[in-house]
C-alpha cells in the first residue's frame, strides 16, 4: 500500500514490565499505569507527539499488552486515527524464519524496520513510556537538523549527587557528546539522558542491522547502538531540556509525580490550553461532592462521589469516598471505594479496590518512630481490604486481606 513520506516517525518503547512498580504492573505494562487523575503514563509521550506535529507513532508492546492495546485502540483519543500514519501497536510477531520476543530495545526497533520504512522517514524519535513530561519534540528535531547530527539525546542537568542513577552524557562546549557512562559511581558530568533520542533513520537503520548480525553484542541502545556510534565518531549531540521531567519507575517516584501536580511551584501544568494532554476520557457523569465533604488541595475527576475528607490527594475517575472516610497525601486509582471510617494516608490504592470500614492504609511519617520503617503503602489492583484491617507503611498488598 502506498504511504506518503513522513519526515519523522516516533517509536515508543512500551513493552517494559516496570517490575519496580510491583503489584501495580502485575497485569498491565507500566505505560498503562494510571497517572494524574485521568491519564495513563503513555498519554504524555503520545500527547507530546501530537502536539509536536508527529502523527505517526509505533507503540512497541510485549509485556501484558492487553490493557495497553485496549487503551490505545485506533489512536482516536489522541487524534492518531489517521488514514496515513497514526498510532500502531507493534507486538512481536512470527515470521517465515520463526518467532522471537523483543530481545532488547535495539532488537525491538530492528524487528520493525519494515514498519518504519513504509513511511520513508528522514528521522526517527525514540521514546519510552516511563516518564512524565511535556516536551516539544519538534524543537529537538530542529536542533538535530541544525547540528547535522546522526543522533541527538535529550538531557537534563541533574544534581551531582543524583547523577549516578542515570545514564550520563559527557559533552564538549558545542553540545557534542564525547563520552557516555551508564550509572557511573563518580559521574564526570551532570547531564542525564532522558531516554528520548532522535536518529537520522538511514544511519540508525544500518547500525541496527549490524548490531543484529553481531551475535556478541547486546541488542540494546544504551549498551550497543550508542557506544557503537560513539566509537565510529558519528556526530552525536546533547539537547538540553529544562522543563519538568520525572521517571515514574518506582512506587515512590510514581507517588511523588502525582503529588507534584498539587504543588503550584512545580512546573507541570495540565491546565495549559496550548499543550493539552489527551487521554481516553471516561464515560461517566460529573463528580458529586456531598454535603459532608471537605476537599482541599486535591484533584478529583469525573464519576467520583466524595462525601469524606480529601486532602493533598489525587482521586481518579469513578472513585467513591464515603462520609467519614479520610484520604490524605494519597493516590486512589479508578473505580475504588473507600468506605466510611477508613483512613488512607501516604498510600497508593490501585484500580477497583474496596477499602473496608475502619481500615487503615499507611501512616504519616511523623507517626513512625524509626524513619527507616516508613514508606508509601501500596494496594494493588482489584483488591478488597476487609473492615478494620491495617496496611503498614512500605507494605505492598497484592491479595485480599
Amino acid at each position, binding site marked *: 500500500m502506498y504511504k506518503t513520506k513522513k519526515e519523522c516517525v516516533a517509536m515508543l518503547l512500551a513493552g517494559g514490565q516496570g517490575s519496580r512498580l510491583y503489584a501495580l504492573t502485575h497485569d498491565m505494562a507500566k505505560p498503562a499505569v494510571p497517572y494524574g487523575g485521568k491519564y495513563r503514563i503513555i498519554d504524555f509521550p503520545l500527547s507530546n507527539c501530537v502536539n509536536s506535529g508527529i502523527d505517526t507513532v509505533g507503540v512497541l508492546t510485549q509485556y501484558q499488552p492487553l490493557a495497553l492495546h485496549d487503551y490505545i485502540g485506533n489512536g482516536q483519543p489522541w487524534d492518531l486515527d489517521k488514514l496515513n500514519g497514526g498510532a500502531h501497536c507493534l507486538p512481536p510477531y512470527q515470521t517465515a524464519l520463526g518467532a522471537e520476543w523483543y530481545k532488547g530495545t535495539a532488537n525491538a526497533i530492528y524487528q520493525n524496520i519494515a514498519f518504519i520504512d513504509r513511511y520513508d522517514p528522514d528521522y526517527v524519535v525514540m521514546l519510552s513510556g516511563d516518564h512524565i513530561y511535556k516536551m516539544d519534540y519538534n524543537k529537538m528535531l530542529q536542533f538535530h537538523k541544525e547540528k547535522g547530527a546522526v543522533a541527538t539525546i535529550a538531557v537534563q542537568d541533574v544534581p551531582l549527587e543524583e547523577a549516578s542513577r542515570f545514564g550520563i552524557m559527557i559533552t564538549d562546549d558545542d553540545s557534542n557528546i564525547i563520552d557516555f557512562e551508564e550509572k557511573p559511581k563518580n559521574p564526570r558530568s551532570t547531564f542525564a539522558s532522558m531516554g528520548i533520542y532522535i536518529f537520522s533513520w538511514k544511519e540508525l537503520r544500518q547500525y541496527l542491522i549490524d548490531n543484529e548480525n553481531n551475535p556478541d553484542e547486546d541488542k540494546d541502545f544504551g549498551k550497543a547502538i550508542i557506544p557503537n556510534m560513539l566509537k565510529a565518531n558519528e556526530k552525536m549531540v546533547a539537547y538540553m531540556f529544562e522543563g519538568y521531567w520525572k521517571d515514574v519507575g518506582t512506587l515512590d517516584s510514581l507517588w511523588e509525580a502525582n503529588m507534584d501536580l498539587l504543588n503550584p511551584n512545580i512546573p507541570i501544568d495540565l491546565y495549559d490550553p496550548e499543550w493539552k494532554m489527551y487521554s481516553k476520557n471516561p464515560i461517566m457523569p460529573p463528580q*458529586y461532592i456531598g454535603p459532608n465533604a471537605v476537599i482541599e488541595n486535591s484533584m478529583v475527576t469525573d464519576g467520583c462521589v466524595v462525601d469524606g475528607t480529601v486532602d493533598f490527594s489525587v482521586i481518579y475517575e469513578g472513585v467513591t469516598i464515603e462520609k467519614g472516610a479520610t484520604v490524605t497525601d494519597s493516590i486512589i486509582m479508578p473505580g475504588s471505594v473507600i468506605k466510611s471510617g477508613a483512613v488512607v494516608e501516604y498510600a497508593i490504592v490501585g484500580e477497583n479496590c474496596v477499602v473496608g470500614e475502619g481500615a487503615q492504609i499507611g501512616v504519616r511519617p511523623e507517626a513512625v518512630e524509626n524513619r527507616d520503617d516508613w514508606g508509601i503503602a501500596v494496594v494493588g489492583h482489584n483488591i478488597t481490604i476487609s473492615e478494620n484491617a491495617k496496611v503498614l507503611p512500605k507494605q505492598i498488598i497484592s491479595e485480599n486481606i
Partner: protein
Amino acid sequence: MSNNRNVLGLIFSNMHDGTIPDLTKERTMGSVLFGGRYRLIDFPLSNMVNSGIDEVGVVTKSNYQSLLDHLGSGREWDLARKIGGLHLLPPFSHVQSGMYRGRLEALYGVFNFINYSNADYVVLSDCDVVTSIDFSKVIDQHIATGADITAVYAKDIINAEQAQHATVFSFNEEGRIVDVLLAPHISGAANISLNMFVLSKEFLKNIVLEAASKSLYSFEQAILQGRTREYKIMGYEHEGYFSKITSMETFYKANLDLLNLDNRNKLFPENRPVYTKVRDNPPVKFAIGASVKNSLIGDGCIIEGTVENCVLFRGVKIGKGAVVKNAILMQDTVIGSKCDINAVITDKNVTISDMRMLTGSQNYPLYIGKGAVI
C-alpha cells in the same frame, strides 16, 4: 437489538425551543447545556444507542450550528457507522421541505430518509425530557398490544404553568388512550406525555402522507387528538426518574435535582451510560482554601473559593474567597475572587469580575447570557 428488529430513531432538536427562549437564542433545545457536561440531546441519543438503535436521524430546523458542532460524526455515541449511524436532517433538504410548523410537516420534510431506511419501527423523541429509558421495552409493548401508536407517558404532579406545555392523556382499562388534552388549564396529578412515540414505519409513512395532503402539521392535534377513536393509541408508562423542561425555572430545578445522589444514580445508571462530546479536560483542582459541598462538578474546573448546591460545567473557574451558592455555571464561566453569587444561571463563557454580588431567587434565577462580561 435483542430480536433482530430494525429500528430507526428520530430526534427533533428544535421542538419546545420557545419554552426557554434565553437558552435557545443561539442554539436548539437539543444543544442546551445540562447537568455539568451534557447537552439535552445526549439523553435521547444515548437512550436510543443503549436500546440497540444504531440508526438515528436528527431533525433540525434553525440555530443548529452548536448542534452540528456537538454531534460531529456521531462518534462519541458510537454512531459513526457505515451501516446506519447518525444522520443530520436540516430543513430545505429537498424541494418540498422547508421550515416546518409541526411534527408532521417535519416528518414530511424527511420523508425520503424514513422511506429509504430498512427499519420496521420508528422511535420519535424530543429533547425536552431528561431521563434514562429503555426503548426496546416500549417497542416490545407496542408489538404485543398491536398498537398503531405507542405514546410514552409518566404520572406526574404538575402546576398550571407546566400544564401549559403538557399533553395529558386519559386511558381506558386496557391502557388505550381515549382522551388527549393539549395545554389544559389544570393542575395536580396527570398522565403527561414525554413526547416519545413508537410507530411502525409503514403506519408512520401513511399518516405523514395523509397529513401532507390535508395540510395538517401538528401530530398532537391531528393524530393524537383527531384520531383518538380511529387509531389504537396505547400508553407506555415510564416509571423511572425524569425531568421535563418547560421553562427557565424547571430547567434550573432539573439541574439542581441532580444534587440528590439517588436522582443522579437513576439518570446515569452504570450499565446505561450517557454519552457526550469529549473535551479532554484535566481533573478538577481543589485549591487550598476551597470549600465545596453538595455540588456536581464537571472536569477541568479550578476551585479556589466556596461552592454550595451548584452545578458547575466543564472548565469553570471560581476565584479565591468567592462564595457561589445555588448556581448553574455553564462551560468556562469565570467567577472572580470575593464574588458573592446566589441563584444565578450563567451561560457559556461568562466572566464575572472580582468582588461582584449577583443574586437571583430560587423561583426566578438570574440568567446571564453567553459570553457576557460583568
